[in-house]
């Protein structure tokens, strides 16, 4: 039997950038197919070709053995292809239900939209995913994880024959991931083909029957899952070995740098207190929506809080003042790099030096030389793959954008570094590098607070694990006692480990 969907000799260039070169891929019925590759390998480009967003320069698509020409997202949908994009694509002003059904709402008399049916179907979808979201609330204000869940519901709603998932789990934590998996398996068992992209190998191996590797836009290999090992895959992806996964060095814990006392923001989190010392990496773990992002945003002064105080090196920070936070030595790498981390139209160099404008200027006068030199140093240190540092940062791949955000903040040489999902959407090589960097920083005496939904990362990197559950700090677990079970128990609000 012919594969359900077959790509043959597909190439795609943006100008002279060859994002894909002569790629072959076949998806079978009742199969979950993994796709892995470094940042910028061309995975999302492949997804967009399947979605009808980009037309391939060369090569063909075949559905059920007959040629398929897609001229737009609508025709991909018509062909039974549903896509979860890497970046959430929601409409903040519309209700969650409308977000799921936009453009193909159930219609009633006179082709009028049947809102009742739409709401009921949304509720069914959410029940399948075990999501607790109100179908009528607007999408505005959803956390990234919730947004991702809505995207998944949207893809499910198609009853598609082919479901493409571009890093759907990058914002999800254990419980949601597990639910997504069971949904994906149900889809597979019903005969659909699923293309699953992730940088997390445990997920790939747990879910997929076959795995395809892309490198630099080229097809490298496709294997049965049980025929390859992680090491082999990594070598194919990066073309070399990665020395160590979690290069955590033991650091000497120094004096308290950041103290948070009784921090409360009504409706988001309450009475959060913790202390971070120089030289330690503290992970802030919890389930999606536990309020971790909101806590560190409040600490940094992005959002206001209702009660409590934040002290850096014993001095109280004025609330709601990011400038003061930065000059006190705080840095925040946000989780949503597109929205909050980067100035897209501005050059990579400018982005890299943005928080340090003052130190790089003389009497407020910015001179290009110092700016560019410093930018180059940091771009090299994090191996940012950028054509020119003067190109707009929007021309970089997702992972490289993340590196720019990270470099930008590392370059301020902060005393306290807060990173929110630092390796979200980052490939395995860079991930190790980021981990190494964090470890190095801690060794240099920086206090690091890391929000992460990836349990291995939390357990591998943290000297201490703080666990939040529904806006409250539930546990403070030292490295020695931290394991999957203790963290999960606290995260679900069951164990009171400390």
């Amino acid at each position, binding site marked *: 039997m012919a594969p359900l969907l077959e790509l043959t000799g597909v190439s795609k260039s943006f100008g002279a950038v060859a994002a894909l070169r002569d790629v072959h891929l076949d998806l079978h019925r009742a199969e979950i197919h993994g796709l892995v590759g470094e940042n910028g390998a061309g995975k999302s480009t492949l997804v967009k070709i399947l979605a009808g967003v980009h037309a391939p320069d060369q090569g063909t698509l075949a559905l059920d053995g007959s040629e398929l020409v897609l001229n737009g997202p609508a025709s991909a949908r018509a062909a039974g292809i549903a896509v979860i994009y890497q970046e959430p694509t929601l409409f903040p002003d519309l209700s969650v239900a409308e977000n799921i059904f936009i*453009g193909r709402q159930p219609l009633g008399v006179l082709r009028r939209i049947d809102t009742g049916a739409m709401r009921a179907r949304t509720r069914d979808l959410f029940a399948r995913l075990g999501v607790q979201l*109100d179908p009528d609330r607007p999408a505005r204000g959803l956390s990234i994880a919730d947004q991702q869940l809505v995207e998944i519901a949207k893809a499910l709603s198609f009853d598609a024959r082919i479901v493409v998932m571009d890093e759907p789990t990058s914002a999800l934590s254990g419980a949601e991931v597990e639910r997504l998996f069971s949904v994906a398996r149900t889809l597979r068992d019903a005969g659909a083909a699923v293309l699953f992209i992730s940088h997390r190998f445990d997920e790939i191996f747990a879910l997929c029957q076959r795995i395809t590797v892309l490198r630099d836009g080229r097809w490298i290999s496709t294997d049965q899952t049980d025929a390859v090992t992680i090491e082999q895959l990594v070598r194919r992806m990066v073309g070399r070995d990665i020395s160590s996964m979690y290069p955590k060095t033991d650091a000497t814990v120094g004096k308290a740098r950041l103290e948070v006392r009784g921090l409360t923001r009504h409706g*988001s989190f309450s009475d959060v207190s913790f202390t971070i010392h120089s030289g330690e990496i503290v992970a802030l773990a919890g389930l999606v929506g536990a309020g971790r992002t909101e806590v560190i945003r409040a600490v940094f002064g992005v959002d206001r809080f209702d009660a409590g105080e934040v002290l850096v090196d014993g001095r109280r920070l004025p609330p709601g003042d990011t400038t003061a936070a930065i000059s006190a030595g705080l840095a925040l790498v946000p989780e949503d790099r597109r929205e909050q981390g980067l100035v897209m139209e501005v050059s990579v160099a400018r982005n890299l030096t943005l928080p340090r404008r003052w130190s790089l200027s003389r009497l407020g006068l910015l001179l290009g030389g110092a700016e560019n030199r410093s930018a180059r140093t940091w771009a090299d240190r994090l191996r940012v793959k950028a054509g020119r540092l003067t190109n707009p940062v929007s021309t970089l791949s997702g992972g490289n954008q993340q590196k720019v955000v990270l470099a930008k903040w590392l370059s301020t040489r902060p005393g306290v570094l807060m990173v929110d999902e630092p390796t979200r959407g980052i490939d395995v090589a860079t991930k190790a590098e980021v981990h190494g960097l964090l470890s190095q920083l801690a060794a240099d005496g920086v206090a690091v607070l890391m929000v992460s939904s990836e349990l291995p990362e939390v357990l591998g990197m943290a000297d201490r694990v703080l666990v939040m559950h529904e806006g409250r700090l539930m546990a403070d677990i030292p490295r020695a006692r931290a394991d999957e079970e203790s963290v999960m128990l606290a995260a679900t609000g069951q164990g009171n480990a400390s």
Partner: protein
Amino acid sequence: MAAQTALRTEPATPARSTAGARIVRRAFVVRELGIVLALALLVVVTAAVNPRFLSAQSIKDLLLGSTILAILAVGQTIVVVSRNVDLSVGSVLGLAAFATGSLFVASPNLPIPVVLLAGVLLGAACGAVNGALVAAARVPALVVTLGTLYVFRGIDYSWAGGRQINAANMPAGFLRMGSTAILGAVPYLALFAVVVLVVAGLYLSWYSSGRDLYAIGSNPSAAHLAGIPVGRRVFAAFVVSGALAGLAGVLHAARFGTLDANAGLGNELDVIAAVVVGGVAIFGGSGSVYGAAVGAVLLTTIGSALPVLGVDPFWQRAAVGALILAAIGLDRALSARLARRLRTRRGGRRA
């Protein structure tokens, strides 16, 4: 994992949907209610000062005065909701009004529906120019329609030259349409506005292509990915706005009877003011045509009420400005409350 099955034991999502819908809906209702209340307050206070402000004649004048602005505001809302703006409406109105006059000069016995259709088609053609430039060239609508504002007005100027078309050149039946009322106080012209308003309102909330406009205004690139034909919808929105401006031009001719190249000059800012006062978000995604229409009535009523209230006429403009700023304040307060509510609701689940 054990922990996860444990999680599952939590009560599955309870049917809070109605509550969420209620909050959001209430916020919108409050928004539109706010401006309806402001309007009611203005009318009541003015009528208390001078009861004749509520006479049939006076109400008729108010409705007549609001009609044209309201029709333009409905068209503008359709465009604004899709994160665009149409600055050229005043010029299109002027062009259509002058075309109406010229048609009657050329053949005085033309039936009124034909002239209405001609005006609407001319407006739609202007709108198509705007829409094509915005959708194809992907240039901000503010810039495109600023350009066509000048171009359409320039065409109007050079067509009209120094000419003026007067009431004597137009058939009496047509002019009567512009000034008579049915049922005592409801002028014919206002019926046009009501029909336009209801059709547009239902379209925007009941029909899939209407909802598409909100989606586009909310997140244009996501709309594209969702398979919405963004270009076509935006184009259509501009065509509709142009067509309504054309209709408004014909009605302008019927109402004022005197036409030169300056009809509707500078109207664009008043229209946008009405839309904003009516609670339509200027960067798209939310707002209703009903709000915009009430906004238009409110702005017109202020103009009529101030002299009755004995307020120095110099303050009229300042009052319009103050109203816009008040609308801003109201929007702020409401959206802050909405955001807080949404947060608390989730919080409620956890507490």
